[in-house]
């Protein structure tokens, strides 16, 4: 039998070794990128905000296309989430973009449970991924990732402060998703009010401990722009898909009698900043944060909740599997028990129903018998009546013929009435 020796050199760590020529592994990033291009990318955005804040228009403006969907009514009974998936392509990059909208957010009289359906939705996507990851035969590399990578929170442009609904919702979401707060329809606010508004919002978020997404500053090539942008949060945006002629160009803008708000003019609004941060600079980081931070947190909590623990160094190597098996068996046992119970109940019900039906049948028979008897009685009575009637008719007939006979005889006998009378008397007897 062969023995093994995994030798680790002394003072090992990892040596840095200089290369004497061009090896060629500098093509690795290209190889990796090519693989991703072939596979395509996924990006999922969740838009949370009250009805009428321009969520759909902003998505249209950001991605330069008309997404489907009608403006929602304000009379929704609760908050539902509608998601649409689109395939976009730009040069050789294929993007599967999913936009999820909260329908009916902020419309109810009692908004206490508004955040719940949003949290449930986000958790459901994590759960789906976790299920796939835990499968025995899994296909992670071709799995369509539906986890939410970015949550755009639309703040109403009141100019004062955040609504309590906003604070509560963002607090519930900040550990589950990357939140990017934006001030919607910001052309309703003047520049000076806007600055104050932004400061107020930021301080309220901080004092309430809401963790919004920070653009990463650890990579030198983007650290500067990201930290600048961090200071401009929340972005004040205006969305528009209509074009207006400015100078000799057609630009996206909103036209008012007193002027035109240009969407892509950085003096007018922060739309360009949002697009830059969300898509052009940090899309990959948003995806990575979702996977390595939010998803891991969900997974950790979920597994701990289900009763798993990490293995001790000297315990058997696969307690996760064993616990899972045990839970599964327990669950299957319960399932079987429930199934048995249901079956019993079903049999019982069937018996009862059968008994009922038998009863009914019996009753029907009885009724039928009764009716039959009734009918027969009636028939008998009628027949008797008929008989008596027939008898009367016969008697009457007899009387009639007798009377006719007498009449005839009376006419024949003429004057001899006494004779007749005598005869009648005689005939009569």
């Amino acid at each position: 039998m062969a023995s093994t020796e995994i030798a680790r050199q002394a003072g090992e760590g990892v040596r840095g070794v200089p290369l004497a020529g061009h090896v060629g592994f500098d093509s690795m990033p290209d190889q990796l990128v090519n693989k991703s291009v072939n596979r395509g990318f996924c990006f999922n955005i969740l838009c949370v905000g009250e009805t009428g804040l321009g969520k759909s228009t902003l998505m249209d403006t950001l991605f330069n296309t008309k997404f489907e969907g009608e403006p929602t009514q304000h009379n929704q009974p609760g908050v539902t989430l509608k998601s649409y998936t689109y395939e976009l392509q730009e040069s050789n990059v294929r993007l599967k973009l999913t936009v999820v909208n909260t329908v009916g957010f902020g419309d109810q009289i009692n908004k206490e449970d508004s955040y719940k359906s949003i949290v449930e939705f986000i958790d459901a996507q994590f759960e789906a991924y976790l299920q796939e990851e835990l499968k025995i035969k899994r296909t992670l590399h071709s799995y369509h990732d539906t986890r939410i990578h970015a949550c755009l929170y639309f703040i109403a442009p009141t100019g004062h402060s955040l609504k309590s609904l906003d604070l509560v919702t963002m607090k519930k979401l900040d550990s589950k998703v990357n939140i990017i707060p934006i001030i919607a329809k910001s052309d309703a606010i003047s520049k000076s009010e806007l600055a104050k508004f932004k400061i107020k919002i930021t301080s309220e978020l901080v004092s309430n401990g809401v963790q919004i997404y920070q653009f990463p500053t650890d990579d030198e090539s983007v650290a500067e722009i990201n930290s600048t942008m961090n200071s401009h949060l929340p972005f004040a945006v205006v969305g528009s898909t209509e074009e207006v002629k400015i100078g000799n160009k057609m630009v996206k803008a909103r036209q008012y009698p007193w002027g035109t708000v240009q969407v892509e003019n950085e003096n007018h609004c922060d739309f360009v900043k949002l697009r830059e941060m969300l898509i052009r600079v940090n899309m990959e980081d948003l995806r990575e944060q979702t996977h390595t931070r939010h998803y891991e947190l969900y997974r950790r909590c979920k597994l701990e909740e289900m009763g798993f623990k990490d293995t001790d160094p000297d315990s058997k190597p696969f307690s996760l599997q064993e616990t899972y098996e045990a839970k599964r068996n327990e669950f299957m046992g319960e399932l079987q028990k429930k199934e048995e119970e249901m079956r019993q109940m079903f049999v019982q019900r069937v018996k009862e129903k059968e008994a009922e039906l038998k009863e009914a049948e019996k009753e029907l028979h009885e009724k039928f018998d009764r009716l039959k008897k009734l009918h027969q009685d009636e028939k008998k009575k009628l027949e008797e009546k008929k008989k008596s009637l027939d008898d009367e008719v016969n008697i009457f007939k007899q009387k009639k013929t007798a009377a006719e006979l007498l009449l005839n005889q009376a006419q024949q006998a003429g004057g001899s009435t006494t004779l007749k009378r005598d005869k009648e008397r005689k005939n009569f007897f």
Partner: protein
Amino acid sequence: VLDLAAVPDTVVSPAVYGEKTGGPVLDFSYVGIDAILEQMRRKAMKQGFELNIMVVGQSGLGKSTLMNTLFKSKVSRKSVLATAQEKIPKTVEIKSISHDIEEKGVRMKLTVIDTPGFGDQINNENCWQPIMKFINDQYEAYLQEEININRKKRIPDSRVHCCIYFIPPTGHCLRPLDVEFMRRLSKVVNIVPVIAKADTLTLEERDFFKQKIREELRANGIDVYPQKEFDEDAEDRMINEKIREMIPFAVVGSDQEYQVNGRRLLGRKTKWGTIEVENIAHCEFAYLRDLLIRTHMQNIKDITSSIHYEMYRVRRLNENNTTVAHANGVPEHHLTAHEM
């Protein structure tokens, strides 16, 4: 599919950040989705890459030299250890050594796993077992990390991505040991067979040898890298078929440079001429290097992680109460179905 306009007029190049764009300069038909490629590249450069290569073959076949030639530096175990003459070990040992190398800003952690003692004994039965065990141990380690509740952000990848098998240049056919080893191991790891010290074969002998080897591999149902069953699409198949027609590559290794026609080249100098390692007319080293490093490295890693590792995971998760040690340390006739 909604198609956006491809080429914009004025473009804020994704590689140029921090430039202020004042006023309406951008052509709004460009969204910037393709900037994600650059973002990915940045992230990859920051994280660096890992590659684990195992070399298997009898001693004296030039394994260490080939590794040094491939990576143009002293990465082999022999170069690191001071001892020049090593005794051939009595059993198969697994010796692993890691290096950090960098090229044009791309950092890579290269681990070379040597297997001294393989095929060197008189009785070589089961000499593949320690190697199988090592490979499975790496899968196991990764699996353990993966199923932890508290997981690391990046699970360290020690899985063997590629196993280069050195065939001695007999010129005839594969030996039983070669067939046994490759048959068993091709099921758990990517095997790249090479004809070692190919400078002892003429071109005709080489072609004949290669053909024989390919036939024998086919006859024994051995699927070496690039495996036919993992071709993803027609384009893949086309590229890989060309490679499959050329394997095993006949290689010569050298870490000495010589002056040839006014240039300094890696080669082996003999009385009858100098063999240029990187000259494809002389040997096929360049093809091997291109395959392993320049074109298929990511693919090799992908097949390891999404196919070999997943297969191991499925087997492992379907087991009940057998520990890995039990499955690997026992003599062959006691082994269960999942151990080759």
